[in-house]
């Protein structure tokens, strides 16, 4: 939304409409979040401000905001579409969250909806890499005093940082091998089963996918396309007071770069007498048709 606000808005309008319709078709309800909330250390991102000696966050990360507000009763299916701030930088995101008692169903549903959303946007050349934070946590259990350094190295695939750690060469090799473990299967049951249940050859097991966000618990995934230099989106599973949740967020501005906008041809063009033409248009809209008034 920088240079040409109208043409970019037209694209985002089309994209958000498609995303909204798809998520609604899957039974998800849109959440309208307040722009300004009291600051909470559990809220990520946002623009932190003070007002009358109180701290607030403007447009923080919705996942943490939604998670903080989930009450009793399952399942829960929610989505949001909005601008998120990180300091003064904003990005438009669409995200969904699903809470239910069956952790595998949770992830299978979320990943199927992801496919559904991208296919609705006619983005077929996407890939999803699935990793596991739990596998990494277990692998470094015996050297957990180096946890922060290791995750820093993993996030950047930085072999040199791993080489500098005072750990055995066998362990370094194990970490490097795990970081490069990638394919249709990885030998870890949870990931392999998930990929088999989603049953789509655009999904890969990739232990090199490491995004240790505070709320992610185990399975994490990253969505990308060879046509975009940035990830299209990302997601993962989390645990909320003993209940399993899973969700993803799509970066709509990255999607906008690869989205091919097609001419909309389902409009009824209405023209003629000023009075009767608008009356006819009103009736068409009432019947669920789209109209474009001839000028």
């Amino acid at each position, binding site marked *: 939304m920088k240079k040409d606000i109208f043409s970019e808005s037209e694209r985002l309008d089309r994209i958000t409409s498609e995303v909204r319709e798809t998520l609604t078709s899957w039974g998800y309800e849109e959440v309208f979040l307040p722009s300004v909330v009291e600051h909470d250390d559990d809220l990520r991102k946002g623009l932190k401000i003070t007002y009358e000696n109180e701290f607030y966050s403007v447009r923080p990360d919705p996942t943490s905001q939604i998670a903080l507000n989930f009450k009793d009763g399952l399942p829960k299916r929610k989505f949001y579409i909005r601008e998120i701030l990180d300091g003064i930088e904003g990005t438009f995101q669409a995200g969904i969250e699903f809470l239910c008692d069956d952790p595998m169903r949770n992830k299978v549903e979320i990943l199927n909806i992801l496919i559904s959303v991208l296919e609705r946007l006619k983005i077929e050349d996407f*890939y999803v890499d699935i990793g596991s934070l739990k596998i990494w946590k277990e692998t470094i259990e015996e050297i957990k005093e180096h946890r922060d350094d290791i995750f820093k190295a993993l996030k*950047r695939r930085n*072999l*040199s940082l791993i080489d500098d750690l005072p750990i055995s060469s066998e362990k370094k090799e194990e970490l490097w091998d795990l970081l490069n473990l990638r394919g249709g299967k990885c030998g870890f049951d949870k990931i392999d089963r998930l990929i088999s249940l989603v049953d789509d050859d655009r999904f890969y097991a990739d232990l090199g996918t490491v995004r240790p966000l505070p709320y992610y618990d185990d399975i994490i995934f990253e969505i*990308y*396309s060879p046509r975009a230099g940035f*990830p299209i989106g990302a997601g993962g599973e989390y645990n909320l007071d003993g209940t399993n949740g899973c969700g993803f967020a799509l970066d709509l501005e990255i999607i906008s770069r690869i989205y091919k906008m097609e001419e909309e041809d389902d409009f009824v063009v209405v023209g003629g007498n000023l009075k009767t033409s608008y009356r006819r248009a009103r009736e068409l809209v009432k019947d669920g048709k789209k109209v474009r008034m001839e000028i």
Partner: protein
Amino acid sequence: MDLSIALPKGRLLDKSLEYLRQAGLELKVKKNRELVQNIEGNKLVLSKPSDVPVYVEHGIDIGIAGSDVLEERKSEVFVPVELDFGKCRLSVAVSNEKNIDIQDFEGYTVATEYPNLTSKFFEERGISVDTIRLDGSVEVAPRIGIADAIVDIVETGRTLEANDLVEIEKIMDVSALFMVNRISQKVRFEEINELVEKLKEV
């Protein structure tokens, strides 16, 4: 290999080309001033060193630049290998006559090409300073009185000495880094990993 590659113009270029050549990726750079060159199927982008991480973050497959510029630009890229050249340090320096401790910097003005790293360094120590961003010849700032100190790259210390400055604290060690675009790493997994393995051996 059909890769897009961002390399820094200036002192790191020759070494970068040499490291890539030894890793099996030879780029015969044309001696004209073309900033984007197609070399045997690869696309080479010659840029300001500080822009290399940004190019790689935005879709260029691989690049080489110093760890100072990567940390300053905070670019989201993979950094699989630190390379054994471009070694120097980012340091705080003041004029010889002002030679004081970092703790006494409160209210000082610091000139630098690295405003983010400078602010972070002083904020972590609870010291409030004003930062002036300059592009090059930062060491002039204290001499003409627009800054009390500088934060800049120090290699041998001779430039500081020539400008009557003294290094008082190191902020970070710097070396050249091999960077990979996050998506290229996934899409071109095998060939980039092969290049990384060879670069490790150089």
